[in-house]
Each structure stands twice: as C-alpha cells, then as structure tokens.
C-alpha cells in the first residue's frame, strides 16, 4: 500500500437528538493516488463519514489523521486541498454557470481554468445561462466542475453520477480516472455498483454504521464468487449448461471432451457481481445501471 492520506481509527458519531450512533467505531485508510469507495445502503453512515472527513461535522470520537496530522489541528487552509462534489446541486440559481464558478473560484488560492473545466463536462456553451435554466444533469456536471475549481489533491464525491444519462456519466467517470492518473486521490460514496466496479481501487462496505468488509473489487469477486466454469452448449436443438470446478480444469476429461466435441455458445467463470456482493454483505439491494 502507498502513503495513507486519511487514517481513520475507531471513528464514532451520533447525531444530536438521536440515541443511535450513525457511525460505530470504523477503521480504514485512504491511500494516496487511489479511488476509495465507501459503499452501503441509504442511512448506513457513508454520507455522515464523508461529512466528518470534510470537517462539516466536527464532534466525532476517535481519530482521523490527514497526512499524519490530526484532522482537528487543521485550519480552514485544509479546504485548499480538497474538492467536494455533493449529491445535490449547490449553486445560486439566478447566477449563470460561469458566475457561480467565478464566485467560488475566487475563494481559493489555487485556481483551475474555469472554461477548460466547463468545456470538459460539455457546459461551455451554456456558461452564460442562469443555473435555474439548467437540467438536473447539467447541474450535476456543474457540481463536478465546482469540486475541481481549486485543483484539489483529494476529491470527495457523493453519488457523483446521480441523475446523469449514460453519456454524461461516462464523461464524469473518465474525468475521475484522469484525476487519478494525474496523482489525485478520490473518496467515493455511492450505491451504484457499475461506478464502483469501473472506478474504485478499493472499497469498504458499511452497514448500520459499521464497516463489514474492505478489499479491492477484484478480491471481493474472487472471495465471494464460486470457483467454477459454466459452459453453455447447443446440443440436439437445445441449450445445455455444464459446470466444471476450476481446480484441475486442464486435466478434467469431461471438460476437454466438451471442448472438442460440443458446439459451445457461452463460457463464464463463477465470479459474482459487485451488486450480488453488495446485497450479500449489506443485506440490501444496490442499484445497477
């Protein structure tokens, strides 16, 4: 593993007026240059955890270190380092897209080129329209631009492709990958398993305020999948399914005979999908798009 940017130990948080803790003693590290996904159903504690890491909530228990220093010891300069893409649009509706971005950009020392960012998400032509006239997808793309205005080292993204059509979701996902390729680190909270599979280097599943599993998507698929190969063949006018164990597959006579003689239609390993793992680990169905 690389250098941990965030080290979270025994993190606990309870909302005022609530008797039940929203986060119940969780531990994890976010390593420099990775995309770390915190996954879980609604109300599991993932957005709360993100709000704690972005210092919107300060009354937590446990320790959080950011680059080896207690997060509580950082002043407002911490925000020069991070960008946050919220789940809902965060703009002044009567200002244009460009006016919104200029206003927020001026509050930072380091400033990305706004028009380049708007162009990257396909909003350059609409920059002079009031945000009130934007569609939800356009507002979400503007949210993403807002998160990148200060050229952050760490991006926090909450349901970042929420409300986007597949084409625009693709643009945002490619920009996130590009951000990582340039050395950036991202903390992603989502329940969209396709986003996770495509973007995340490591994921942690959170259920009722507790992390129940942390691994890479590949490790999870291997761990939770069946070690078998399923072969569909077409014989005598109908499709037949044959299942072989992966162990000793090269010496499996039945399998080798099937390869030689049968008309094979499909062949799949028994690895499971992240969506199935999500349901198994959290007990709740996720969304696949």
């Amino acid at each position: 593993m690389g250098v941990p940017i965030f080290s979270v130990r025994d993190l606990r948080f309870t909302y005022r007026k609530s008797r039940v803790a929203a986060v119940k003693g969780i531990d994890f590290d976010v390593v420099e240059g990775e995309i770390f996904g915190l996954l879980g159903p609604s109300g599991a504690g993932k957005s709360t955890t993100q709000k704690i890491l972005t210092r919107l909530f300060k009354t937590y228990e446990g320790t959080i270190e950011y680059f080896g220093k207690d997060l509580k010891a950082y002043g407002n300069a911490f925000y020069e380092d991070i960008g946050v893409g919220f789940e809902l649009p965060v703009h002044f509706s009567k200002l244009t897209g460009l006016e919104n971005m200029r206003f927020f950009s001026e509050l930072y020392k380091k400033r990305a080129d706004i028009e380049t960012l708007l162009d990257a998400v396909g909003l350059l032509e609409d920059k002079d329209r009031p945000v009130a006239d934007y569609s939800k997808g356009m507002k979400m793309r503007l949210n993403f631009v807002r998160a990148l205005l200060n050229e952050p080292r760490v991006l926090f993204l909450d349901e970042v492709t929420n409300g986007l059509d597949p084409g625009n979701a693709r643009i945002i996902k490619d920009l996130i990958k590009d951000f990582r390729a340039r050395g950036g680190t991202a903390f992603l909270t989502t329940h969209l398993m396709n986003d996770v599979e495509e973007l995340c280097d490591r994921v942690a599943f959170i259920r009722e305020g507790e992390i129940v599993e942390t691994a890479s998507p590949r490790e999870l698929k291997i761990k939770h999948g069946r070690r078998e190969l399923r072969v569909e063949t077409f014989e005598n006018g109908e499709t037949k399914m044959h299942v072989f164990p992966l162990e000793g597959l090269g010496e499996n006579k039945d399998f080798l005979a099937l390869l030689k003689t049968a008309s094979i239609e499909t062949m799949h390993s028994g690895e499971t999908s992240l969506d199935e793992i999500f349901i198994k680990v959290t007990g709740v169905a996720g969304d696949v798009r």
Partner: protein
Amino acid sequence: MSDNLLKLLKGELKRLMKYNILQISFAVALLWIAVIFLIGREQATTFVPLFIFMDAALMTVLYVGANLFYEKQENTLKTLLITPSGYVAVLASKIIAAVYLALQSSVIISLAAFFLFDVQLDFLALYSAVVLIAFAHAALGFSFAIVSRDFNGLIAAVGLYMIFLAFPSIFFAFGLIPERFEAVMLLSPTHASMMLIDASFGKTVALWTVLVSTAYLAALAAGLLLFFIGPKYRENAVRE
C-alpha cells in the same frame, strides 16, 4: 480572512442585484416617500422615523431569515462551508449585506424627508443607529431562521415578534401606551431601536435611554452571534 470577506461581500452584493432585492428595497423606499406625500408635510416628522424603523428592523429580520432559507434550499450554505473562507467570514458578509440594504433605504428616505418635507434630523446619528439596528435584527433574523423548521415557521416567528415586540413600540410611538411603561418597553429590541431613531430626529429621548438602547442592541447582537448563531450555524447549514 479579510481578503475572502471582501470577495464574499462582493458576491452577496452581486446577488442582491441579481435576485432583484436591491431594486425592490429601492422601490419600497420610493413607496414610503409617496406615502409621506399623501399624508402631508405635517405628519412627516411622525411617520418618517417609523418607516425607517420598519426598513432597518423588520425588513432586515425578514430579509436575513428568508435569505438563509433560500440559500439552504439551494445548498449554497453547505458548499460555502467547504471553502477556505470559514463560517465567520460567511456570516459577516451576510450581516454586512443586510446592513447595507437597510442603510440604502434609510439614506433615500432621510434625504427625501430633509429636502422635500423639511424634516430636521441628525444624519450621522440616524445612520449610526440604522447600522446598529440592522446588525441586531440581522442576528435576530439568523436566530429565527435557525429555530424554524421551514419557511412557514420563519414567517410565524417573525409574525409573533411583530405582535409581541414591534406593535407595542409602534403603539407607544403614537401614545397608545402610557410613558410610565418606557423602562419595561426597553426590554424589547424594537423599542430600543425606535428610541435611537427618534433621538436622531430630535425627539425628546433621555440620554440614559439612548445609552441603554445602544448597549442593549449591541449586547443582543453579540450575544446571539457568539452563543447561539455561531455554534448552530454549521449544523443548520449542513442539516438536510
């Protein structure tokens, strides 16, 4: 902080224009001037202080409270908290914008009163009073918005404030409440505000009343900001 405070303030003033609030405030000030024309020059000395009080106190409460709700709805309060500005600068910019709005109205009305209706007043005393009154009522506006669950709750809170604290001051100004109740009336921020405005228009207001009113409004604003709004602002902005 001061650098970002200026940028935040610039943003607040730009939005006052974009959301047509400055223009509406200007139109209301012109409306008050038209009303003074209608009621006549003789009554101007009585009504001009009242109109300035309504703009500086009641309109400020309503403007700040509504603004906070609107921005919460647009989620911009939350996104401002994750900038290097800090919430103190964000709060300060909103208060200064509210004070500016109140000052704009009072300048228009007072200049019209002086030049068109021969109303005598101490401009420096009036504008100082308006700054303090708007500051205290901006703090009240924030407080009402924080304790209200929704916009209707805010309107109800402002309504109760007017019924229990603003109307008695207006009744007092018209002599409907006996003068022996003045010391008790000073417990009301609206009455303290009225006294400061009256004093700037040369009405008979005891020096101790001016001093107590000034200290009370300053202490009220500082107390609310330090012990209520400051600790609650972040939680309120983040709450969904």
